[in-house]
């Protein structure tokens, strides 16, 4: 997609877990390095793309890449232990081996948005496909306007990367809005639905781009709010999740209308998918 090196031809490539972090009771981060040093050095990805991670004997899962695209030594994935493969991945320790194919799909439209405010709206683990955008923007701070980070979680303890949100909140021209539907002791942010925070986001709708990732209901509400404040539809993007097994637009599971989410997405412009998002079952 980005014209750079791909590791997607057929079988996965062996990779080693170099670090593992438990982010919350059900969420963990694996840092991976491809065993083939040349492949690792050539590996490039665009924020918003994903890899297929393979667990020996069990299968593959699509996982978005959360590391900094400028980081050349490691490929980071933050994962919720939910299904067969991810529960198994959760048990891996540094030194263990996995398979990796990627990167796949269309990432966030970062080249198109320089000079503008960047509004990021995420829910739950939807923050993972977007965090590499934050890294990207912070490394090229002068190219962008305001950075607004809105993140919602169900329970306060579901929030991962708390220190990072604290750190980002202190940066100039950066606004961090976090909400938990259920708070906890010492919860410094909003208690309630994340949708209640959209009105507080400070950005210039005439020169802003918004990127969303999270539950579809939340994204629909965020779209209503952002479009209602005058953001043009052409500047509203979202990352979709569907069942991706092959990652190359072949197996058919991830179809969303005529689009193969793995190939044509996972990042879409709002206008491309809004009609189908209004119907359950696509």
């Amino acid at each position, binding site marked *: 997609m980005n014209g750079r090196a791909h590791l997607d031809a057929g079988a996965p490539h062996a990779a080693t877990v170099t670090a593992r972090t438990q982010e919350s009771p059900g969420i963990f981060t694996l840092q991976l390095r491809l065993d083939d040093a040349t492949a690792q050095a050539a590996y490039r990805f665009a924020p918003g793309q994903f890899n297929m991670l393979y667990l020996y004997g069990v299968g593959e899962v699509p996982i978005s890449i959360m590391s900094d695209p400028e980081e050349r030594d490691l490929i980071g994935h933050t994962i919720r232990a939910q299904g067969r493969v991810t*529960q*198994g991945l959760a048990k891996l320790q540094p030194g*263990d081996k996995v398979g990796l194919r990627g990167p796949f799909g269309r990432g966030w439209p970062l080249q198109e948005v320089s000079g503008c405010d960047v509004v990021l709206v995420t829910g739950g683990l939807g923050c993972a496909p977007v965090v590499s955008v934050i890294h990207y923007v912070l490394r090229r701070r002068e190219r962008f306007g305001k950075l607004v980070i809105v993140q919602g979680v169900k329970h306060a303890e579901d929030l991962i990367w708390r220190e990072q949100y604290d750190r980002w909140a202190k940066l100039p021209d950066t606004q961090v809005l976090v909400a938990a539907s259920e708070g906890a002791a010492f919860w410094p942010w909003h208690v309630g639905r994340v949708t209640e925070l959209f009105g507080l986001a400070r950005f210039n709708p005439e020169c802003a781009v918004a990127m969303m990732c999270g539950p579809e209901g939340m994204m629909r509400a965020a779209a209503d709010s952002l479009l209602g404040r005058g953001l043009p539809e052409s500047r509203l993007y979202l990352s979709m999740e569907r069942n991706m097994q092959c990652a190359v637009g072949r197996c058919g599971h991830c179809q969303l209308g005529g689009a193969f989410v793995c190939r044509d997405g996972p990042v879409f412009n709002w206008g491309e998918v809004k009609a189908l998002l209004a119907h359950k079952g696509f």
Partner: protein
Amino acid sequence: MDAQTAVKPRVAVHKFSSCDGCQLALLNLGEDLLALAARVELVHFAEAGPLDPDTEVDIAFVEGSVSTPEDLERIQQVRRHSRMLIAIGACATSGGIQALRNGADGAEWVARIYSHPEAISSLAHSTPIASHVKVDFELWGCPVSGPQMLAVVNALLLGVTPRANADKVCTECKRQGYPCVMVSRGVACMGPVTRAGCGALCPGLGRDCYGCYGPAENANTDALATQFDHLGLEPQAIVHRFQSINSQAPVFLAAADKARMGCDE
């Protein structure tokens, strides 16, 4: 994670009220069973030799239904001694063929059949294992298939949940290239509401599936019963289609009850 150096998981195979057919499915694996035996420690498997029913195990396979007062006590004991409990076969997952008595007067049957009915000690109902204790995974089928058993053990050895396949028998039937017997022969095949796993054994031999793997997900028994009627089955015959090996599986039980209403009309 390293299977070679890890301590071998201890495995038990317990029998409750059943015909032993599911244990045979495991025994019939032959060489595969030997390969498996190299990776697990079979501590209790009466059909194969080892006997140690009360020992602590990592994985207990339970064949059979709870059908006698003794079963009732023993299943609690098995559960206490097992880290994972896997129910295998129609008896263990739905009560089995013997659960046909659940809708009848079992005592009267016993009195008619046995010369000394007082020597028979059985519960009024035959029930699946999950009605009594927590079951970690269920493998349906009468009997279960060997490859399915191996897939379960392999998954557990890899430290992950076994893969559940609740798709219809039709999916396996079409992958094998068998023409649909319902369409080409007009026979009342249960495949479209029955859970896959057998490899479409019966349609592969040109006959109809009789539902021994129990209900599939989203089993549209109403639509199938309507088609059975179009194929010329009498209401009583439709009841019998659903009231067979897995008569007490809730989806089949409801379908049989609905078809029975047609018998009364």
